[in-house]
């Protein structure tokens, strides 16, 4: 990175550290922090969408739909979700390959499960056998997003369902008295107002989502845990930057990163809560209306 980095072994301490922290592997480490943030940025809206659909299914008057919603929410919430995080990517991967296999190679005569192997024909393999590394990474990442969205969608569905119930009944009755249909009342009355009731629950789910991101490591993705473990490990004199076991300091760094992330989002949610309480028929909304500090 810096011009003086050609031979680190003769450098004074601060320059040595400057070179270490800007070498190629460390830059990959920093990029992994970006991956965590990208995962959060993609998963949160997807999970919220899943949650909204789940909540609508729970409210549905058509019983197969409401049973489907109830089954989804209860199964996901009843099982330890670490099981889900490891189960969904493998099961989904095998499921997709199985479907592709049925389409691409209908005349394949061997069984797919041969002993301990899962074998599909070459055309059905996803990602294709000779695809570049970034495509494999993207596929693994997408699988992770699906697993996270499934689990957190169920949490969000439960919260949003509760929030929809919490909107005062009188308002919905008023809307119906004005001749609105059920769908119109939902769109105009419930949907805009439910967020203030959902916010504490959603904030909680967001915090849990943040704390779930290191589990990417278990899915074989080179995330911050992987890099901290790798970079912190003891480096012998064969390496350009030899140092003893520094994993403790690298993990301390991760700990601080997560503390910052949860702290910042806690404050952000508090502000959002004040913003949403404006004009609401709640204690906080009433306090804002009277002109007091929220």
């Amino acid at each position, binding site marked *: 990175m810096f011009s003086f980095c050609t031979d680190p072994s003769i450098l004074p301490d601060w320059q040595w550290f400057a070179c270490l922290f800007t070498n190629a592997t460390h830059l990959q480490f920093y990029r992994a922090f970006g991956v965590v943030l990208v995962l959060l940025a993609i998963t949160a809206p997807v999970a919220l969408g899943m949650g909204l659909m789940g909540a609508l299914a729970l409210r549905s008057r058509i019983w197969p739909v409401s049973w489907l919603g109830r089954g989804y929410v209860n199964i996901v919430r009843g099982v330890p*979700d670490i099981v889900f995080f*490891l189960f969904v990517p493998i099961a989904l991967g095998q499921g997709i390959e199985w479907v592709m296999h049925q389409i691409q190679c209908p005349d394949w005569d061997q069984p797919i499960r041969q002993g*301990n192997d899962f074998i599909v024909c070459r055309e059905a393999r996803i990602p294709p056998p000779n695809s570049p590394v970034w495509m494999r990474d993207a596929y693994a990442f997408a699988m992770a997003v699906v697993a996270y969205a499934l689990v957190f969608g169920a949490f969000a569905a439960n919260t949003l369902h509760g929030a929809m119930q919490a909107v005062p009944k009188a308002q919905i009755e008023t809307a119906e008295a004005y001749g609105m249909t059920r769908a119109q009342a939902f769109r105009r009355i419930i949907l805009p107002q439910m967020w203030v009731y959902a916010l504490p629950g959603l904030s909680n789910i967001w915090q849990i989502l943040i704390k779930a991101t*290191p589990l990417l490591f278990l899915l074989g993705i080179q995330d911050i*845990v992987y890099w901290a473990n790798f970079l912190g490990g003891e480096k012998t004199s064969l390496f350009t930057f030899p140092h003893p*076991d520094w994993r*403790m300091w690298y993990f301390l760094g991760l700990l601080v990163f997560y503390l910052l992330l949860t702290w910042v989002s806690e404050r952000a949610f508090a502000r959002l809560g004040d913003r949403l309480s404006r004009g609401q028929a709640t204690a906080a909304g009433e306090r804002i209306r009277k002109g007091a500090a929220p």
Partner: protein
Amino acid sequence: MRSCAESFELYILRALGREFGANLLPRGLDITLCDKIFLIASGMIWNIYFAALAIGIGFWLAVVVALARFSERAVIRRPASAFIFVFRGSPLFIQFFFFYSAFVLLPRSGIDIPLGFITLTVNTSALTTAQVGGLIVLVLNTTAYSAELFHGALRSIPKGDLEAADAYGLAGFTKFRRVVFPSMLRLAWPSYTNEAIFLTHSTTLVFLSAFPARQQSGEAFYYARYFVDQTFNPFVAYPLVAGYFILLTLIIIGLFGIMNRILNRHLPKERRARYRFRPQYLR
């Protein structure tokens, strides 16, 4: 192929170590369904060990930390708040990694702590095992989460109860033991039940992180993962481990429900706190 009875004999206590069953775990095509059932069940021994000890120790520590957090003196309150913030604000998974890599750095021979009349030798090599080091992390973690619950309960003890205690001339530790502590427990108990469940479920993380499984003796989820790696079939081992955990969860709900009845027995029925299952596992 082994019969089910043979699998039972070989693997039901295998999680305790080599001396208690087969030398090696079943591999590849040799794996039968009964192997999965019994080996994963044997792993539950460690889940119960971690959960029971962490809850048992963490409970008392949490009471102390909650009282410290509730204290009016900043010198006592600040460290307690900081402790709770650090352990609740960061992922348990990272905490395992951090503490393991810190424990590894301690000198192998043990640390001598001179106490004047006697010198205490702390066995540091035990700290790098999951059974001790992992347990310490779990204890610290559940202490922080439970302390936050207990702190919330302390804040919402009815004013009348405290005034009644004063009127009866109760003060100091007697007041705490007879009024504050029981009320706090009663108010916190439904959410504390959930905390116990989450903690039990997060014992699955112990061997998934840095702590090594010596002699391949791990907890249930470690074995489930082992089977999935061996057979590349997630459709048996994971549902099995999930089933065991649902069973364990039901047992916890039952046990804590009995305690909840005892804590609420003096109240009329409609004022009793009801338990609601609100699982949010990851921490």
